[in-house]
């Protein structure tokens, strides 16, 4: 545990010395913030929490990139081997990836809240306890997913390509950029199989409807299961050596990552009400738009 904390401190320093990291973890989410809130919520204060929920989700999902690329670079350059001859285990290495992601994301989240209040006149704070809960679970989930990709890819380039594909899916199919109710029905159904969707709708619930933690239980369970599963798998798949090739067992395990999401999606499809609550939250911001101004977004009726 002490090793994990030492590594966390060092890796945060390294991340902060890396311009690309600063851009993707701070500048990029803020660009989204000004874009979303500026375009869609300027004339409709009620839409601010809804848009902020999207921006928060995007910020959290950024930990998917975060320190997993750093770990691949460490492995490729033979840096991990040096840690391996010291008493440092894979658990400490992986935990430090997640922990440093977490600590580095919180200030961005705080800045986003502050800007939403100051510049975009957001009223209230939403259910902050719920926000905190979802953000924590979300970062662990997405950081651990990133670590799985880091383990099953053999070079930084390969990692980036796969991350890019998954990242686009998370961004565009989860409701984070295009609200879920605006997507075609078949895509909405597909979205129920993505962990990102639970993060986005969960955040919308606590920010817009300001519901209590009890009412976002499905989202919390979904994210907690994903987080635990992803962390466990990343530990199983961890590789120290640059030349260690990804074995068949590792590939099967990595493929097994989708099983809980499959089950989750099936359960949600059969019993859940995620799509309808997402629609309620979305329509609530539209209804509260002043009558003499056009609605911010048009939902298919």
């Amino acid at each position: 545990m002490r090793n994990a904390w030492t590594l966390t401190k060092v890796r945060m320093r390294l991340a902060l010395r890396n311009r690309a990291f600063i851009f993707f973890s701070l500048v990029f989410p803020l660009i989204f913030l000004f874009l979303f809130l500026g375009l869609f919520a300027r004339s409709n204060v009620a839409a601010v929490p809804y848009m902020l929920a999207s921006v928060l989700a995007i910020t959290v999902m950024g930990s998917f990139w975060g320190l997993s690329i750093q770990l691949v670079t460490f492995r490729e350059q033979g840096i991990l081997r040096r840690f391996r001859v010291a008493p440092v285990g894979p658990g400490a290495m992986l935990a430090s990836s997640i922990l440093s992601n977490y600590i580095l994301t919180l200030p961005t989240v705080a800045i986003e809240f502050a800007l939403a209040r100051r510049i975009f006149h957001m009223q209230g704070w939403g259910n902050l306890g719920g926000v905190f809960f979802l953000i924590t679970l979300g970062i662990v989930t997405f950081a651990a997913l990133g670590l799985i990709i880091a383990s099953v890819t053999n070079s930084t380039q390969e990692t980036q390509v796969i991350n890019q594909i998954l990242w686009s899916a998370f961004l565009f199919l989860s409701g984070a950029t295009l609200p879920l109710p605006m997507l075609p029905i078949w895509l909405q159904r597909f979205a129920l199989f993505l962990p990102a969707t639970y993060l986005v709708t969960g955040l919308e619930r606590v920010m817009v409807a300001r519901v209590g933690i009890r009412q976002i239980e499905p989202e919390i369970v979904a994210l907690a299961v994903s987080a635990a599963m992803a962390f466990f798998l990343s530990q199983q798949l961890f590789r120290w050596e640059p030349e260690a090739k990804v074995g068949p067992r590792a590939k099967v395990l990595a493929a097994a990552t989708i099983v809980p999401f499959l089950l989750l999606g099936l359960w949600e499809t059969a019993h859940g009400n995620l799509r309808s609550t997402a629609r309620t939250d979305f329509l609530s911001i539209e209804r509260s738009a002043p009558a003499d101004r056009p609605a911010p977004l048009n939902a298919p009726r």
Partner: protein
Amino acid sequence: MSAPIIEVHNLTKNYGAVKALRGVSFEVQEGEVFGLLGPNGAGKTSTVEILEGLRPPDGGIVSVCGLDPQSPGSAFKQEIGAVLQSTALPDKLRVGEAISMFASFYKRRRDPAALLKRFGLEEKRNTFYSYLSGGQKQRLALAMSLVNEPRVLFLDEPTAGLDPQVRREIYTIIEELKKERKTILLTTHYIEEAEKLCDRVAIIDQGRVIAQGTPRELKQRSAGTTRIELRLARPESDAALKQLEGVADCHASDGVYVVHSTRVPQTIVSLVKYLEANGNELSSLDIAAPSLEDVFLELTGRRLRD
């Protein structure tokens, strides 16, 4: 004698079809500097990295400080220090941060600042790793390998690729460690290094130990012949020189004739007579003390550096 601190018995390692180690055995006593000497690809790194716990062996028995390097948990790692064949650290990690971080991983630890001072890196404390020279990087790697007062220190080609002056610096450091009675396993393909630094040497070639002993013992093996190096005013045929008294073997390269003689005085006398008779002259003559190079040549028929 107490139980050896490193025991290697019949160690084998394959990489696919490549048989990198074919039954390597040796023992290292506490306080000894032991050298693995051999050409590139001999299996030195494979051996050392198995002993460090970085690679699993395919067969044989290894034990370091009475522990199996593959044993789970950190007890083994607490006891060893290592300079890998190539050390890499994050480019934007500062020297001081690197050594303090590694120190914090161990139960037993030395003061990182004192180590940096000892290795002449005090002023580089706040320098990024990527800005260090090759020699400075290697000194940092050595300093880092000592942060836990290791019982056994592994140095895999610690001077490879460094220029001669830096190499001498590293020699001085290792000699100091030797005076402190540190147990060191060192690999090298430099003869001088093995002769200068090691108490005992195992010569390793194609995954096998082909000779083992103190440098002096090993050199006595080739004491049967002494190497004489000559330059001549005009070329002579190898065959003619081989006819001289006491000559076991002769070959020429780049105008230098290397004559292996079993009776040096007789050989020189008959050489001078032969040259006079043929109107040729000696430009230079060197009688080389037998070296590990000769031992290697004798055992394998190849030179160590090619």
